[in-house]
């Protein structure tokens, strides 16, 4: 069973880590659209998969956050990636299966996964 004692141990561990990495100024931001349209299209498991993947690889300087309707509901779930000094990349129709590739290729190695982007969808018409 999960216990509050376990939570205390987490607190101590996290407090030590927080001292180690006090400033993450060059933050990569992953933003998931979580309005009605995104939620209905399956954004919640995509968000959770990003959080698990970032945690699993112990990546620092990467944040995962939620936003409202991005305004292109037919492409949901939509994920936007902002890397410092680079143009925003918009991924569309995301699924949990696509997350690992985006994290490896784009977040870690800096190469956007072009076949998942909105550019690929619009250019392919």
């Amino acid at each position, binding site marked *: *069973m*999960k216990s*509050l004692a*376990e*939570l*205390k141990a*987490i*607190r101590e*561990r*996290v*407090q030590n880590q*927080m001292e180690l990495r006090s400033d993450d100024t060059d933050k990569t931001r992953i933003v998931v659209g*979580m*309005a*009605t*349209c995104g*939620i*209905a299209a399956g954004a*919640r*498991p995509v*968000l*959770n998969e990003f*959080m698990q993947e*970032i*945690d699993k690889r112990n990546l620092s300087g990467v944040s*995962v*956050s*939620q936003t*409202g*309707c*991005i*305004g292109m*509901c037919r492409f949901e779930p939509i994920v936007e990636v902002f890397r410092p000094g680079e143009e925003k990349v918009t991924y569309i129709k995301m699924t949990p299966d696509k997350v690992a590739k985006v994290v490896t290729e784009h977040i870690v190695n800096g190469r956007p996964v072009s076949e998942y982007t909105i550019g690929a969808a619009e250019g392919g018409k």
Partner: protein
Amino acid sequence: MKELSLNILDIAKNSVKAEATRIGIKIDENIPDNTLTIVISDNGCGMSEEFVNRVRDPFTTTRTTRKVGMGIPLFELAASQCGGGLEIESKRGEGTVVTARFEYDHIDRAPIGDMPGTITTLISGSPDIDFEYIHVLNGTEFIFDTAEVREVLGGVPLDTADVLNWINEYISEGLDGLRKSGN
């Protein structure tokens, strides 16, 4: 929406938008009475009577990116298509209570779905808001309150990965316990 937990996530996000500091989610499964009741309550800014009267209309929204708002209409549809309905009580400056009632065994009732996922998603999106989640199964209660977690954590934010994982497992175990004892 495939699961009611997704409707709950969506409606609770309205409470976040309403600048609530405390949001309550209560699910009451009463199998002998054949009822399922879901209540989402907040202490946010509330709505005027006039707005409450038109909030079920999909062409009512506060957002500016487009002119439709489907959150409340979809939740109302989920309830009314299985012999229930939706009630909204709201007062400016005090908060809002949204109650959805369902016939428990109605063939069109969506499953409750992944509630631990909904609660952790809400917390990770708004780590400074307190969420209270009460799940009742045939009179037996499971209660989770971020206020208690916050107290144990001291200054550690609730949206830390380890904390969210702990919360997810804690709620999953609590709900499993309910299923075992409540039937």
